[in-house]
């Protein structure tokens, strides 16, 4: 085996791939070959590093030098200076936003310091398309130990003792779920993995599948052993082509090495895996709908009970776990349940991965111990809200969750405390909003989503979500009444108590939480016909400040509907009847004279 003296890790996550990381990788190969260094330095495509805002990311070991925003044209310099001459290219190193200090290593950044990577332990560390690298990081050892040294019940006991709860959102204890299915009579049972990550703004599961697919495969085989199943299905979104490709490569490699298939590790245990592609229906993230979809039907949910553990896929006992939940399993078995349970709060153990996005400096993927406060995530890890704007709210749980206002920024993140303040953990989307975001508009945005994605099977959700959106439409266009606000709330509770599945039961959450914490914004829309954040188009007027206007005519020339008039070098005026509120004039004005009111 050849040992390289340098390893160049190039991020191959979706964000960095979109900013041309594959081309950067090619260029490294070319530049290394040119200098005869191909045997000395190895280029490796890895999964997501997490700091997507600074992509494409390149890390060079053994120094651990962390290069961000790398361009194809920078590659020659890195090879010439760093790889050949051993001088780190300071110009491309990460600069800390707050102190403006240069950070040499990845782990020293503010972004990584407070994180604890368990589910993401191998993302950005190994090449996900090479099983040997996973094995070198103790991969498939947990499976081997389970099959040769532990009984299925012992495996379940370890998972129960760790306190691991479902990371898909609902937080059901994983060990308990497994023990329910283990109790049922076989011989046919199924293990399913929910990789239908539908929450808009969340990409945790995608990053695990892209960066460390073997950990999910290993965990599913362990789950199969624990409950007595020999067939597994991974239901993954067709919108995730890179994840699907790497998952398939990983499954093929695992079969080749004998970690999947007949008589694994020469035991009596056999387990096979198949990928099933989703086809773009959000409701298929719900467990019974997902199974109906694998069975080849419209993905509509079924009433529970019977629960899937009793009667699931093809009518057989089935367990369904989320990608992130599964990624924790091999770690727990390797390191012991006590070590996992040390992290977190009383009822929420371990860590949680969040996809941090929206109005935040460091967009990306973060994994934090449960109980970390929202403030730590936003201010320390996330680097705060950019452009000097004020933090207004954080949205967790996507279309099923709620908004957390700035006054509750010190809330520790765990299942219970989030539910208590009217939001939910959800699968891990964490969208930050600043003063320029209108909370009524956000509520309407999520309702738009649920109206679209409601499968139509039950009336409360099919009709209720539409009526909710109509009321919100009325409010954002300035035609709402105070009675509408009461009606809105009442209807929300109807949906919560009467819908068939979690989609309808949680659809009102964005409305209820914004009504609870931002009622003043709703009232401003209704009573004063005003959108405080300046978002709702129907309530906006563009005006020119005569003091600031120099009469340069730039705005009147760019206006597509000739709504701006005025003489040269004199203050201009906007005809609000003609104005279509496109905002072109604001972009053109060099004197900051045009305002939205």
């Amino acid at each position: 085996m050849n040992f390289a003296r340098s390893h160049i890790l190039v991020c191959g996550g979706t964000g960095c791939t979109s900013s041309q990381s594959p081309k950067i990788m090619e260029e490294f190969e070319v530049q290394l070959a040119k200098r005869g260094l191909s045997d000395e330095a190895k280029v490796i495509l890895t999964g997501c590093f997490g700091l997507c805002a600074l992509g494409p990311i390149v890390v060079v070991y053994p120094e651990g030098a962390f290069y961000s925003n790398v361009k194809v044209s920078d590659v020659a310099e890195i090879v010439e200076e760093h790889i050949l001459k051993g001088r780190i290219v300071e110009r491309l190193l990460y600069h800390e936003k707050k102190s403006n200090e240069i950070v040499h290593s990845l782990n020293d950044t503010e972004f990584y310091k407070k994180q604890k990577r368990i589910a993401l332990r191998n993302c950005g560390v190994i090449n996900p398309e090479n099983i040997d690298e996973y094995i070198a990081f103790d991969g498939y050892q947990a499976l081997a130990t389970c099959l040769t040294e532990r009984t299925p019940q012992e495996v379940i006991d370890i998972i129960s003792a760790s306190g691991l709860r479902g990371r898909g959102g609902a937080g059901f204890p994983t060990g308990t779920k497994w023990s329910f299915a283990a109790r049922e009579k076989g011989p046919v049972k199924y293990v399913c993995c929910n990789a239908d990550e539908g929450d808009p703004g969340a990409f945790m599961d995608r990053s695990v599948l892209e960066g460390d697919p073997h950990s999910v495969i290993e965990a599913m085989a362990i789950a199969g052993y624990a409950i007595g199943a020999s067939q597994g299905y991974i239901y993954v979104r067709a919108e995730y082509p890179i994840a699907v490709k790497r998952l398939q490569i990983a499954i093929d490699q695992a079969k080749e090495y004998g970690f999947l298939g007949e008589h694994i590790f020469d035991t009596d245990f056999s387990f096979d895996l198949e990928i099933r592609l989703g086809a773009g229906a959000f409701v298929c993230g719900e467990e019974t709908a997902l199974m109906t979809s694998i069975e080849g039907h419209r993905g509509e949910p079924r009433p529970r009970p019977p629960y899937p553990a009793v009667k699931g896929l093809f009518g057989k006992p089935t367990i369904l776990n989320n990608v992130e939940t599964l990624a924790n399993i091999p770690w727990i078995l390797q390191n012991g349940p006590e070590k996992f349970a040390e992290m977190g709060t009383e009822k929420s153990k371990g860590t949680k991965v969040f996809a941090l996005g929206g109005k935040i400096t460091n967009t990306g993927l973060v994994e934090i111990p449960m109980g970390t406060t929202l403030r730590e995530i936003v201010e320390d890890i996330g680097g705060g809200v950019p452009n000097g704007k004020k933090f207004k709210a954080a949205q967790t749980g996507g279309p099923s969750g709620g908004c957390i206002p700035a006054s509750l920024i010190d809330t520790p993140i765990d299942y219970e405390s989030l539910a208590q303040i009217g939001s939910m953990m959800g699968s891990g989307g964490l969208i930050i909003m600043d003063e320029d975001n209108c909370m009524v508009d956000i509520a309407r945005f999520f309702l738009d989503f649920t109206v679209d994605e409601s499968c139509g099977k039950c009336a409360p959700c099919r009709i209720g979500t539409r009526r909710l959106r109509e009321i919100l439409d009325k409010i954002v266009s300035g035609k709402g009444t105070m009675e509408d606000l009461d009606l809105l709330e009442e209807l929300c509770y109807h949906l919560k108590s009467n819908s068939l599945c979690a989609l309808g039961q949680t659809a009102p959450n964005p409305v209820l939480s914004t009504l609870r914490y931002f009622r003043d914004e709703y009232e401003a829309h209704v009573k004063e016909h005003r959108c405080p954040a300046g978002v709702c188009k129907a309530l906006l007027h563009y005006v020119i400040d005569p003091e600031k206007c120099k009469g340069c005519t730039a705005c009147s020339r760019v206006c597509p509907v000739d709504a701006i008039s005025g003489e040269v070098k004199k203050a201009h005026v906007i005809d609000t009847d003609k104005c279509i509120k496109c905002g072109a004039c604001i972009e053109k004005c060099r004197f900051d004279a045009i305002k939205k009111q």
Partner: protein
Amino acid sequence: MPNTKTVVPFRGTKEQEAKLHEVIAKHKNQPGATMPVLQEVQAIYGYLPEEVQIMVAEGLGIPLTEVYGIASFYSQFALNPKGEYQVSVCMGTACYVKGAGAVLDRVCEVLDCQPGSITKDGRFSLEATRCIGACGLAPVMTINDDVYGRLKPEDVDDILKKYM
């Protein structure tokens, strides 16, 4: 809307039909075969017109209503042909709070077509898509396999011009 019948006449070839029957033969005895079959068949034809749905239903021995029920339920299945260039503007939450709405508006204006439809010359089809997971680059638009990130409405004209 996905469940509208297309106005474009069906132009399937014999080769495509042969491939379709191969796909059906491969999956026929597999439990829950309809979705994988429709996914592969859509890859052959680019969309799922009525003529193709009939062939799938007959091939798998299931009612046409079931095939249509599935084809119209999932947003990935298209009952209309796609344009030469598929323009998708991400409307995930991260993109939305960073102004994807205004980007989409501008694309609609420039292409003179609405999300979910195709331009009159059939060259561009436009979709407002769900989160594509590139939230670090928000707001994001894709045109076929090209990705454009950190967009402002005024960037749209120049980008689209490259394809016109």
